[in-house]
């Protein structure tokens, strides 16, 4: 029984923490996200050199074949600095889909380049006005010669502007699948913009766009999609914990240093107790995120656990904490906390976007509440019922 990093994982966290910290001085997220890339080129290069782009990719495809705890350590360190590098969206998530769904040729084609950090792939699933869990309205149609084209709209697609390839969910003859689309293919109209967390996001329209099914024979795309999204919902919680811890630290410093009525804000118990409550929420959320990560690791080791249910439970709990931290950190800073220049605004913006990611917290709560697990007696250990 153990929810701690081992020595290697500690070292990994420290390494990423210092590497990202150097590239993200105060105000770093504002600068990085307003660049053409949407993240910091130097930091990305460093992450790639450290082999982190290959974290979730098997050794045979040039990756590190690491587990969920390494993913956690890396993403928590990114979150700590409100860093914008799209390791999860642009590398980890597509790598899980490609490894789970793709043919060996497709794995060969995409995974080594991802592992090197030479490219990113955008996963296009969200659609305007359509619940995340419903079948896509984008359709795939196949002509007589077997070629496939996609028609419909995806939005928002995170980091689509920099992606070399899109993985697009679409329905073909009533069945949901994932399709590979070259970013430069004919019949794509992309409108770029920014997401609430200042990162780049696009609306992508497909009008008879050529696509290739991401499909090895006999693999059920829906199952792989659900599992990959469940993994992503757990992985993003590590970034959330890093963000929350930093937002709280900035807030505590502000309470110590900011003076009103001739005294530091920390003189006022009403404010101090709110900081203490935030601390409690952050630590409980950290425990939940670590527990969910350990559960994914156990599942990878063969334990029979319901990944999607665990991801929903953890996402809801940590997401509620993220909302509280984002709101309180801004409130306790006052007006300055709402400015683009304030460190805490970076954290609040990203925390807000995270709570609505992968279908959002309300949908996760709906699923969890409807699931039979809602009334199951909670036990954090797998063999202690």
């Amino acid at each position, binding site marked *: *029984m*153990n*929810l*701690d990093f081992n020595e290697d994982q500690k070292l990994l966290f420290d390494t990423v923490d210092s590497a990202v910290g150097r590239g993200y001085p105060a105000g770093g997220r504002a600068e990085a996200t307003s660049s053409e890339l949407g993240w910091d080129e130097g930091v990305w290069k460093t992450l790639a050199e450290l082999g982190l782009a290959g974290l979730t990719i098997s050794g045979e495809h040039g990756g590190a074949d690491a587990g969920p*705890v390494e993913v956690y350590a890396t993403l928590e360190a990114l979150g700590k600095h409100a860093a914008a590098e799209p390791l999860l969206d642009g590398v980890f998530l597509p790598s899980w889909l490609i490894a789970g769904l793709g043919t060996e040729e497709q794995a060969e084609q995409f995974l080594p380049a991802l592992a090197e950090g030479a490219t990113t792939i955008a996963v296009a699933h969200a659609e305007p006005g359509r619940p995340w869990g419903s079948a896509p309205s984008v359709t795939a149609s196949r002509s007589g010669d077997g070629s496939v084209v996609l028609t419909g709209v995806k939005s928002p697609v995170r980091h689509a502007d920099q992606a070399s390839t899109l993985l697009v969910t679409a329905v073909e003859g009533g069945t949901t699948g994932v399709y590979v689309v070259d970013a430069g293919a004919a019949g794509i109209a992309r409108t770029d913009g920014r997401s609430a967390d200042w990162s780049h996001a696009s609306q992508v329209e497909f009008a008879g766009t050529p696509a290739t099914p991401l499909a090895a024979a006999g693999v059920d795309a829906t199952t792989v999609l659900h599992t990959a999204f469940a993994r992503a919902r757990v992985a993003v919680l590590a970034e959330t914990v890093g963000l929350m811890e930093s937002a709280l630290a900035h807030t*505590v410093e502000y*309470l*110590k240093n900011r003076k009103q009525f001739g005294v530091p804000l*920390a003189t006022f*118990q009403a404010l*101090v*107790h709110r*900081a*203490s*409550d935030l*601390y*409690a929420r952050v*630590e*409980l*959320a950290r*425990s*939940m995120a*670590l*527990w969910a*990560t*350990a*559960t994914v*690791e*156990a599942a990878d080791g063969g*334990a029979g656990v319901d990944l999607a249910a665990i991801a929903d*439970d*953890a996402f*809801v*709990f940590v997401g509620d904490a993220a909302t509280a931290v984002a709101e309180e950190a801004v409130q306790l800073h006052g007006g300055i906390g709402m400015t683009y220049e304030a460190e805490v605004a970076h954290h609040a913006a990203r925390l807000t976007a995270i709570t609505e990611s992968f279908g959002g917290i309300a949908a996760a*709560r709906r699923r*969890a*509440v*409807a699931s039979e697990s*809602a*009334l*199951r*007696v*909670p*036990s*954090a*250990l*797998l*063999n*202690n019922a």
Partner: protein
Amino acid sequence: MDLELSREDIEFRDGLREVFTREVPEEVRRRNALSRTTRDDIVASQRILNAHGLAVPHWPVEWGGKEWTPTQSHIYASELQRNSVPQPLAFNVSMIGPIIAEFGSEEQKRQFLPATANLDIWWSQGFSEPEAGSDLASLRTTARRDGDSYVLNGQKTWTTLGQYGDWMFVLARTDPDAPRKQQGLSFLLLDMTTPGIERRPIDLVDGSDEVNEFFFDNVRVPAENLVGEENQGWSYAKFLLGNERNGIAQIGTSQRVFADLAETAADIPTETGALADDPQFRTSMHSARTTLLALEATQLRVTGASENGQASPVSSLLKMEGTKALQELSKLRMHASAEDGMLLDAGGPGEDPLRADDAAVVAAAQYLNQRKLSIFGGSNEIQRGVIAKTILGL
């Protein structure tokens, strides 16, 4: 990371469960689950545990302690709660026992420790006073040295279960001229049959009288009943704060309440079906469930840290959030019962309500009683202050 108990820990846990469920009578555990434990239940339960070497595992080995690992200590606290076993009396096993074992004379250890472990002596806590609650060091009860005894004058309050107390450990002021209020306090052991002691029960909002006031009028305490050194009482009281923190979040208790409510909900009718299918109820239960998972994971992190010899500063967090979670569950239990749960008694104060063995019937009494959880043992406001000061540096 690893989410499994080791084979040894499972054997250890199963051994505890065997004693807890086979030896402690079911009706005793049932009453405890309903917060209707009697004095005799507590005594019987602790003597059974003591006979199995399980009443005072955290004492020094020579007085019955076990030198368990932090994981084993966690399992012990958790299994007591999950199986509704009345906790060994905290005043005996968590408070005065460790203090006498650490600071008492050899004579005091021989006289008191075995009887304290077996609950042959029922101890009461003489700390709080009307003007000294969270601010304990402001206490005013005096102990004036007179020949070979101390003469005690003053008032103690919130004395939980003091109606059963054979002895009381009293924190009293022996040097009223000490420069700081924390100085000049001494730790005295008081035989409750001594002349000059008056008890008044305090009636509580839930219809119970589990707390009392005590008045001391020239009560003589033999000088040999001073623990440790005169005027060093505050440091002994503070020693308790660093003592046993396992079980502080009451996660095992909350798990049991959750299990009971989840199981019952299928049989509680609503206008449209069963409570178990009510979206509002399920949403509340899901929130309780995830909170308990996060609390247990936090407890596991703390236990893991102490396995590695590190102290963890989060006991304030566990106390505050753990008791909030249990209070929330008792509120859900009450909402599930609605008016069925409103009955405090039948036939007069102090009598049980009809159907008192039904969790639905005693729900309001339990809910009201559990308001105490966020007040005693350092109120939530005190815990927030501790977090701010010791962790956040505010």
